[in-house]
């Protein structure tokens, strides 16, 4: 039995790595995504434009505007002249945020009365708008506090913020570990489901089925190369993250590989399940996407799971990608305890078991 599976695995690896085209397909995404993703998928709000309509000519407003100008979030500054300009600036997305400073601002500040500033945020860009507004609030807060101190009063209590595990809130630290999960997902799905679909199209699948190979052996023969590919790609991204991007690696290497291993098996089960119901590569491709999109959406990569409604949070438990992202992020950034890891490892194992059993059942049902 082992020599037959060995023959299958060797054949699969020869097909994967022997063909220049499929070599490119396996490694080009890794290179491209590790090279581009960390820069493209940044959640920092930087290089934005702030527009100000200042009706006040007093010292307070000028000082405040200078403070805004120093903030990293706003590299461009537009000085507006009229209310109409305010409207069009937002409409044309010339600026993310417009501040309106009323005529009596400096006077009110000087006399110690409450002085308001109006902020208009582009709701179409709500995420970055919110973050930018946060910056603005911080700047105003610190301005207020300084004024209070100057006036000889004590400032009210302040929150002192520290981001643990990612002290500078560098989003590359967040993106790269997640990439390990994303890229291995795609590859494992392709290696399993698309390759079976291709065998179906070329008629070699029938050839396998009439041979003494059992559906179980064929499944193992497809899973092993997929796991190997996942390991290799994971290693490449790990190296790139640590060497080129300086992402810290705090946790256990063994634990990382064990997790990728279980994860690859879980996803290959899904790939096999897709392939067992698809006749052509085109169908398999659609199947892969049908799985990929919700899996990424519900992984906590794009949107925090804590923000989802309760029932959806339960659903995400069934998503292997969600668990792997938690695991790799913790291994990279905080080197968590084995106990914490186990909390996410066992769901992976369970999912792997279920997907593979389901795939096996479908396989037998469809072909035998």
């Amino acid at each position, binding site marked *: 039995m082992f*020599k*037959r599976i*060995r*023959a*299958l695995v*060797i*054949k699969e690896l*020869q*097909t994967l790595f*022997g*063909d220049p085209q*499929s070599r490119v397909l396996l490694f080009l995404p890794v290179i491209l995504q590790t090279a581009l993703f960390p820069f493209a998928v940044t959640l920092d709000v930087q290089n934005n434009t702030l527009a100000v309509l200042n009706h006040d000519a007093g010292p307070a407003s000028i000082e405040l505007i200078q403070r805004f100008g120093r903030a990293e979030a706003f590299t461009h500054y537009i000085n507006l002249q009229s209310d109409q300009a305010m409207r069009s600036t937002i409409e044309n997305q010339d600026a993310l945020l417009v501040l309106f400073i009323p005529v009596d601002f400096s006077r009110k500040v000087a006399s110690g009365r409450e002085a308001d500033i109006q902020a208009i945020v582009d709701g179409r860009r709500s995420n970055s708008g919110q973050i930018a507004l946060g910056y603005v609030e911080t700047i105003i807060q610190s301005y207020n506090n300084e004024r209070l101190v100057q006036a000889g009063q004590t400032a009210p209590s302040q929150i002192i913020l520290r981001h643990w595990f990612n002290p500078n809130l560098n989003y590359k630290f967040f993106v790269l570990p997640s990439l390990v999960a994303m890229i291995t997902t795609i590859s494992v799905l392709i290696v399993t489901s698309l390759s079976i679909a291709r065998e179906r199209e*070329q*008629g*070699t699948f*029938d*050839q*396998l*089925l*009439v*041979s*003494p*190979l*059992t559906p179980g052996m064929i499944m193992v023969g497809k899973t092993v190369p997929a796991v190997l590919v996942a390991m290799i790609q994971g290693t490449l991204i790990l190296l790139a993250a640590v060497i080129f991007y300086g992402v810290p690696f705090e946790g256990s290497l063994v634990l990382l590989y064990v997790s990728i291993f279980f994860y690859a098996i879980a996803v290959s089960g899904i790939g096999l399940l897709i392939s067992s119901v698809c006749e052509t590569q085109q169908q398999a491709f659609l199947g892969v996407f049908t799985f990929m999109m919700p899996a990424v959406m519900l992984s906590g990569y794009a949107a925090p799971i804590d923000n989802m409604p309760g029932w959806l949070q339960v659903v995400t438990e069934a998503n292997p990608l969600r668990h792997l992202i938690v695991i790799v992020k913790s291994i990279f950034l905080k080197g968590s305890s084995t106990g914490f890891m186990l909390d996410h490892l066992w769901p992976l194992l369970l999912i792997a078991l279920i997907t593979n059993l389901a795939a096996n059942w479908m396989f037998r049902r469809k*072909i*035998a």
Partner: protein
Amino acid sequence: MPDVLVHLDRVKKVFPHQENAALEELTAQIMPGKVTGLVGPDGAGKTTLLRMMAGLMHLTAGTIKITGLDPIKDTSELRKIIGYMPQKFGLYEDLSVQENLNLHADLRDVTGHERKEEFQHLLKLTDLTGFTDRPAGKLSGGMKQKLGLACALLGRPKLLLLDEPGVGVDPISRRELWQVVRELVSQDIALVWSTAYLEEAELCDDVLLLSEGRMLFNGPPKAMTSRLEGRCFQLRDVAGSRREVLTRVLDRDEVLDAVIQGNSVRVVLRRNADKPKLEDLQAGPKAHWVPIPPRFEDAFLDVLGVKPPGKSPLADHLENLKKDGSTVIEATHLTKRFGDFTATDDVSFKVVRGEIFGLLGPNGAGKSTIFKMMCGLLQLTSGKALVTNIDLKTSASKARQHLGYMAQKFSLYGNLSVQQNLMFFSGAYGLDGEEQRQEVASMVQIFHLEPYLKASADSLPLGFKQRLALACAMMHRPDILFLDEPTSGVDPVTRREFWTHINSVVEKGVTVMVTTHFMDEAEYCDRIGLVFRGKMIAANTPDELKKMVRTEKNPEPSMEDAFIELVTKDRHEQN
């Protein structure tokens, strides 16, 4: 004498990254009012030539002039006078017959009164008037071809290019298709009919015979076959093993070609050679020679001058299995339904050890469905399919260890090398170590694969692909062989070589089940099951089947005659 419609002048096509030219300096003329057959095995360059004439492909060198126009430069003018029917019909399967016609009429700007008239005319011509509402996908193979033809005929083209219209069409529909074609050429259309079936060449007025990109012959088919007048014979009433007699016949130097035809051996002699002596052939006391007319295929082999070998070293590789008359393959009341469509309807048959059993029928008749159920690739709706008394569908891989399987279009791993394919298939059948190395080495030797070991399977010439596929199916020394259309599209020499291998392993006691739509391939079988519309309408030896349709008018019916007769009879009984 009408004017020449198409001038082909030293037409050459070389595809990038390919050593050999797809077409080599071809010069010929195509006349109106004639059917010009573009004849040759797969890979001969037929489709390439058609596509160049249709203006769909650039020439590497040479010129094509159609009524003096260049197919690439003057595309828009030529579109109006050329009708092209590609291999896959170019029909929209979900659209009805009428909708397909409408679409093509729109594309070709056939409008108004003329449009109505043409529809009526074409539907009548193709006998599709009663089926205008039926989706094209639900038509039979023959009807699809006729609809494709009708679509290509819209706008009254002067030149009609048909790419393998005979594929997937049963003999009856093919005869009908030819009637339509005959009527067309009587209206002075120039019709180019490409085909891989050499026997179809005999129906054409003019033939362009292609092989591996070179033109071997250009002229009326009679000119080709008449050279073999007096050189074709049948050795009738052979006693003993006809396969052994065939081997002896093929071993004689004076013989150019020989094939089995039921209980006879059909022999073509070399030029100026005499018939071999009967006693040398040991064909039994009753054996005698009967002169027969030459076929186009004989002429093709004569031009090539290659002779298929009589013996196969593959047989020496196998151990003798006892031919004990035991039943090896058995189907009882085999039925398969896909929805409301019955693909296989209550089929039963038995195959004993050391026998070649053939499933003969046109594409879509249900051969493949039966075949797939027998080797466990398809669920049965009801009935039983047993191989060595085991149900392959449910049972263990142990039983499958005894099977060899070779599918249509040689399902090999195309981007793996020959060596890697051999290693994989031997490994899948549990061979390893020294045994595996030896087995692979002997296959390489038997099938002369040495020069191609490192080449990818996809890049092999068709003949070698077939050899490799057979090698992969034989390495584990199976005692049952399943062959699904094993020689479709290959040239006659390769086909004969293939059957030499099969004959020799059958002599060793291997049981063979084969599907085919080639009538002459069926002659190699010990028994044939005729499959039509999901039913097995007759099962017997080739000679008996032919005998069933023998009449005074047709004292020596061919396999095709037998097929058509039996199918027609079956239809009448159904009604």
